[in-house]
């Protein structure tokens, strides 16, 4: 089945009902996407499909045919990743790839409310979220003039 993965056309053979999460981790060996709860509650497995944040544990592989999938590996060295390091937005790190992918779908210069809404589906038990919000604010401010590569689909 063909789809776009981190900007490259790929052809992956897998059962259509497998979870996108498992296909990414096991067939594509992209293990940056984490499994947390496996029921769509924690956001750890967040990836972007056609620019929209989704939880990959609840996406049948068949439904990404012909679509654009972006994982944490596809935003390597992104301003958001650097900001998460600079502002200590990660502690244990299990939620971090999902946090960054959910934050990718935010527009430039988000308000605190917009950040809270965008990350309402991403649970972090270490940071208390404040460092995460500081990291996102800093990265989005810095990228205002050169917009991030991926924005929310309209």
């Amino acid at each position, binding site marked *: 089945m063909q789809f776009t993965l981190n900007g490259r056309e790929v052809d992956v053979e897998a059962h259509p*009902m497998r979870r996108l999460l498992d296909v990414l981790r096991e067939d594509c060996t992209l293990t940056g996407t984490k499994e947390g709860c*496996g029921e769509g509650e924690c956001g750890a497995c967040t990836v972007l499909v056609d620019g929209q944040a989704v939880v990959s544990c609840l996406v049948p592989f068949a*439904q990404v045919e012909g679509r654009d999938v972006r994982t944490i590996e596809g935003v390597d060295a992104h301003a958001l990743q650097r900001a998460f390091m600079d502002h200590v937005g990660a502690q244990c790190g299990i939620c971090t790839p999902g946090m960054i992918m*959910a934050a990718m779908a935010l527009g430039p210069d988000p308000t605190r409310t917009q950040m809270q809404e965008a990350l309402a*589906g991403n649970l972090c038990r270490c940071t208390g979220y404040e460092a995460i919000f500081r990291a996102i604010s800093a990265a989005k401010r810095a990228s205002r003039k050169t917009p991030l590569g991926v924005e929310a689909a309209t």
Partner: protein
Amino acid sequence: MLRDDGPLVPLAGATDLYVALNFGTLTATRFLDLWPLEPLRRIEMRGEMLSLGALVTYTGLTRSRLVRQRLPMLVEAARLVGGIQIQNRGTIGGNIANGSPAGDTLPVFAAAEAIVVARSVGAERRIPFVDFYSGYRATVLRPDELIVAIEVPAVHGHQWFRKVGTRAAQAISKVVIAAVRADSPRVALGSVGPVVVRARRAEQALAAGQGIDAAVAALETDIQPIDDVRSTAEYRSVVAANLLRQFWMQATG
């Protein structure tokens, strides 16, 4: 395809179905993927009715100017479903078909007197939303029918929606209410019975000008809350009564 081996389970955004699949509690083995059907994502006026395609997502509702203008209580409900990731995938057709008594959009459709449009290969029928459920998670939908759209007539009066859960986001409701303040007030509640309920006796008390205390007393006979993992019957009764009072104070005629 419809007549050979066993039932086909329609699959849309999979936000309910894949939870069951991941837990190993899903017994179905045959699925019909509806996700690529773009015509079912339309939001449009059909005469006086607002027509919402079954595959419209919660994000689709929130972004629609038509829905924001005509049915703001549905936008309120959509914004409180899960997180953004679920809102980007969950569909109104799925929320209705799944039939959880805690479904966030269901009181809105009950209060708005919506119509479920069901289509089979040979026919289409329109089912009043209030008649759609025949029991706990059971619907009058036939095995060869799919929900293709929801039609919502114009709602006159002040629309009001509240969801009470454990936390502001990512919570399944303990009590959820949609109500309309008009000459004939409408009140619908979820999570207080096996199916979403229209609180007809409370509505009659309000319409007859008997006052909010009489309406709250009548509400006791409209709902049948239970104890379960999320809450208790007693808590749900108290909260349902408080929500009715809050509606009556906040929504002005």
